[in-house]
């Protein structure tokens, strides 16, 4: 009876470890997907740059039209960006000034979603106007309707009216200022050119293929993966260390099964000896205990996976306060249960327990039948 209880407890220990692994995997997958969606959503999927020996893209309207014709492309935005110094009263800040076509840029980066005050549309209605990142507007202490002075060596100074405040949830909010494309071309004194073309595609995973296609049309292009290799690295590294730690938890839980099986081998040594006397070979005795270990592990794994799925589904998502712009504004993590994770965890636990069962199984198979049967 007490052995039965011990068996149940050691199976439950595995179940608990598997449940934690399953839940944590669901949250990890959710985080990865959310992080990926949020981050990749805020960056151009494909960026086209000037040819290697040129500073600007000339005849960019043709290029834009050509790219719009490619299957899978949903937005194309020509941009002229450069440095500028913004002055307001006693404050002075160096900024990145991006000249954009509002509709085109919105189709690539959904900038209208990030507007907190005013509107992007006013950039094209009001001459000499600017939309500032919210951090930048704080540092300059300007509000909607104020005028900032823009200047830079070799640029044509201008006074710009603040028509919007923008929050992207990235560190760019400290440095970014949007103007209309024509305004930027006037400021930098470079009419009819841009220095990058940003592209949005319907599926970010296809960015590489489309970038390659654009490349082969003669415009140097790179996908978000190439421009931001650290994103994938961070995600892979984090989920890998998570998996290793929780995999070890399962290994530790499996020791419970090993100790239970040792007890069984001790208590049942008479029966094991008898089975040998009746013709069970040492190998088949070994098989019995390895299988018992594996099956107990399997039961624990299935119980744990089911419990983990129930918890994940009933909890739904985990909301937390990011307290800043870390993790690209991810503040709600959905629990995502994937069949492949459940199956992988069950197989892993089963295998770990098969291996863990080898030791007590060898012990059982090495019993001397004479001693086992006659021993008290």
């Amino acid at each position, binding site marked *: 009876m007490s052995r039965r209880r011990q068996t149940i407890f050691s199976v439950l220990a595995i179940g608990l470890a598997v449940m934690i692994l399953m839940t944590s995997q669901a949250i990890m997958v959710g985080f990865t997907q959310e992080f990926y969606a949020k981050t990749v959503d805020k960056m151009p999927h494909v960026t086209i740059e000037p040819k290697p020996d040129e500073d600007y893209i000339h005849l960019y309207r043709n290029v834009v039209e050509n790219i719009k014709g490619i299957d899978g492309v949903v937005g194309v935005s020509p941009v002229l960006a450069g440095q500028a110094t913004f002055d307001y009263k006693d404050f002075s800040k160096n900024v990145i000034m991006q000249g954009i076509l509002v509709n085109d840029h919105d189709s690539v980066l959904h900038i209208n979603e990030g507007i907190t005050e005013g509107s992007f549309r006013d950039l094209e209605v009001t001459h000499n106007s600017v939309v500032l990142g919210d951090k930048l507007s704080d540092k300059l202490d300007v509000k909607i309707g104020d005028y900032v002075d823009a200047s830079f060596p070799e640029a044509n100074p201008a006074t710009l009216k603040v028509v919007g405040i923008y929050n992207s949830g990235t560190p760019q909010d400290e440095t970014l200022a949007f103007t209309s494309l024509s305004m930027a071309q006037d400021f930098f004194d470079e009419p009819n050119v841009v220095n990058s073309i940003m592209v949005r595609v319907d599926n970010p995973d296809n960015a590489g293929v489309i970038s390659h296609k654009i490349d082969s049309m003669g415009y140097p292009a790179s996908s978000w993966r190439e421009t931001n290799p650290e994103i994938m690295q961070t995600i892979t590294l984090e989920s890998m260390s998570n998996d290793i730690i929780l995999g070890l938890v399962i290994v530790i839980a499996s020791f419970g099964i090993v100790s239970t099986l040792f007890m069984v081998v001790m208590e049942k040594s008479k029966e094991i000896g008898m089975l*040998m006397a009746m*013709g069970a070979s*040492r190998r088949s005795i070994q098989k019995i205990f390895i299988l018992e270990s594996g099956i107990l592990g399997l039961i624990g794994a299935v119980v744990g996976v089911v419990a983990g799925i129930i918890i994940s589904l009933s909890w739904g998502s985990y909301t937390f306060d990011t307290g800043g712009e870390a993790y690209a504004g991810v503040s709600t993590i959905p629990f995502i249960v994937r069949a492949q994770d459940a199956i992988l965890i069950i197989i892993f636990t089963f295998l770990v327990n098969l291996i863990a069962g080898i030791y007590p199984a060898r012990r059982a198979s090495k019993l001397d039948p004479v001693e086992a049967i006659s021993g008290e």
Partner: protein
Amino acid sequence: MSDEKIIQIRNLTKIYENGVEIRAIDNVDMDIETGEFLAIVGPSGSGKSTLLHQIALLDTPTSGTILLKGEDTTKMSDKQRSRMRNEELGFIFQYHHLLPDFNALENVMIPLLIKGIRRSEAKKVALQLLEEVGLIDRADHRTNQLSGGQNQRVAIARALVNRPSIVIGDEPTGNLDTKNSDSIYELLRHLNREHKQTFILVTHDLSMAAKTDRIITLVDGKIAEDSRNVSPT
């Protein structure tokens, strides 16, 4: 004729070394014929159980050979010895050693299942054996629901279920009262006559030994006396 000699033991020696060397069996030669009903007796420590375990292939000798049905068992692998134990040898111990988690019928079925016989077929054969030992109506009882004598009968049915050519008993009635042990003896004797199986019993019970065909007396690991009973009952 050599095929009548089911067991041939030559120069059998078993030495235990626990700091001191103990010769449990010392250079024993012995032949046993098919269908013999024989008792091994002797004082405790004389090596009779050790000898029995060698014949039963539960232990390996230090030197010498044991031929079962003409095959040298000392050269066999664990798998071959296991198969031999399963098919040619049946054991009855002082305690029944039935598996407590199973009922009488399932216990009797185990050797058949180890042999690889289908469950339905094994069940049929096991029921037949339970009938022979007079316990057909107790087939679904567990060890703790049966008396000592009944459990020993189940153990006998289990030992005989594969129709082994040799049945080995290590004090098979040592744990029973006189009435029960007499009826167990009668049962073994009946099975011996019915199926021409060879029976080797180790016993302390001289009145029981007196009823067998042949008595081998061991002293200090050697055969001290080998006598045939002219008029066994």
